[in-house]
């Protein structure tokens, strides 16, 4: 159980968000506030909409033909679904780590440098190398790869690949890091390393993590939000959600009686 969240300003504010895949409604009227520098976990059974919701926060769902969003999502100060929002710029500020690690078929160095290069964030080669090292250190991968930065990223183990993807996301210094079941394809030891990493990262980043694993939610998060059939049932301090939830449905779920 982690310590209670410090009072923090709201980083992401969602008001009355609904999401549709064509005619099918996947999210209903969700409102939630996620404070800065806090780890928030989204839990709920498969198909409850938690991943869909996560992907509305950096507009990854835009790519799905026929999808539609209603409501407001404010990241920082701006409504990210506003007319004048640059999606590319938004995704630079709101990074994402996926369920299956997805390193590019390039060298370890080039993977981390990718975001820096395409966004023109490194002024010089030396700066680029410095930033790549910093991100690899931040994701606790540096010691394992420092002697083979120019080897292919595909040669890393699953856990290392996932930490590489985290390093890649951190390199462009996002304000928020979204993680979609980042450890679900990893073994327990690799999972533990990712969890330790999440714990360290919240000092600098606002983190939102989707997880199937309730122990994981309990271990890494300060706040937990429980989703059920496209609705946000309850959100609160993680210890409260797991020990004394307000809703009967939440209690049934966290104690394994449903879902």
């Amino acid at each position, binding site marked *: 159980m982690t310590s209670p969240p410090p009072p923090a300003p709201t980083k992401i504010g969602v008001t009355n968000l609904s999401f549709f895949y064509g005619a099918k409604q996947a999210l209903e009227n969700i409102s939630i506030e996620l404070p800065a520098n806090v780890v928030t976990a989204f839990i709920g059974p498969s198909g409850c909409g938690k991943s869909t919701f996560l992907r509305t926060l*950096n507009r*990854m769902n835009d*790519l799905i*033909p026929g999808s539609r969003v209603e409501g407001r999502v404010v990241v920082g100060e701006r409504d990210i679904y506003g007319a004048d929002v640059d999606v*590319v*710029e938004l*995704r*630079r500020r709101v*990074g*994402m780590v*996926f369920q*299956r690690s*997805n*390193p*590019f*078929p*390039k*060298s370890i160095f080039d993977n981390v440098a*990718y*975001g820096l290069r*395409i*966004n023109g964030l490194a002024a010089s080669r030396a700066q680029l190398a410095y930033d790549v090292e910093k991100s690899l250190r931040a994701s606790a991968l540096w010691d394992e790869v420092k002697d083979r930065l120019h080897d*292919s990223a*595909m*040669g890393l183990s699953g856990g290392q690949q996932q930490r590489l*993807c985290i390093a*890649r*996301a951190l390199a*462009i210094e996002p304000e928020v890091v979204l993680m979609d079941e980042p450890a679900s394809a990893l073994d327990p030891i690799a999972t533990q390393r990712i969890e330790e990493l999440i714990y360290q990262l919240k000092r600098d980043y606002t983190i939102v993590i989707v997880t199937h694993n309730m122990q994981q939610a309990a271990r890494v998060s300060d706040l937990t939000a429980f989703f059920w059939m496209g609705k946000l049932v309850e959100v609160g301090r993680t210890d409260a959600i797991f020990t004394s939830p307000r809703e009967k449905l939440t209690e049934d779920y966290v104690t394994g009686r449903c879902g």
Partner: protein
Amino acid sequence: MSRTSRRKAGSALFVGFCALSVILAPIPLAFVLFYVVSEGIQALNFDFFTNMPKPVGESGGGMANAIVGTLIVIGLGSTFAIPIGILSGVYMSEYAGTRFAALGRFAADTLNGVPSIVIGVFVYGIAVLPFKQFSALAGGLALGIMMIPIIARTTEELLLLVPGTMREGALALGATRARAVFTVVLPAALPGIITGVVLALARIAGETAPLLFTAFSNRFFTTKLTQPIATLTVMVFTYAISPYQDWHRQAWAGALVLVTIVFVCSLLARFATRRIEGMRQ
């Protein structure tokens, strides 16, 4: 016979047929290669690459003009067919759901099925008649038109094999859609695309029909793109149907050179793809 042994016999028979097919399939290849090499090698010498064709009755001479011509015409075709083919493949894969992409796919498949002689006549109509001149350019155009659908479809299929998560990974880092395609998706599929391009090259390197109407042929050495130009395939055709023994031998040698050009291309492609794939082990 027991049930099990019958099943085992059936299985053995099936594997036997498969093995037999594997042996039968390459037999024509072996024969073609054997004949081309054994006949071609006799007429092949250094002069063949450097000399011009000799008039009937004189022996010796070479096909320097046709070798250079073939390379020029293939090169011309490739310069526009490779970019157009790859880019349209990119469109068909990255915007796969659109009606325009479906139309492109249908058009590519149809074009792929059009007999090469028809393409030759078409190019004759648009690029030879208006200028009243056969030309290397027209030949390149005809071959390029044939390459585009092969390259486009190969590119499309290979790009679709690149996992969607890789595109998302790039987009999530602030890449635009085009950037994601050109810096991540396309490089990931590159080895396969190179192979596809070489297959297209090999396919059109052996075309004769479309060249008869476009590049025509030329008894003299030229590198002028607006002039008719000799090519190996047309030369082999002309020499092979002639009544002269000497020309027949030259035709075999020309065929051998053609096969070698295609072979070297595939080897180079293999080498290139190996190197790229080495990067991702």
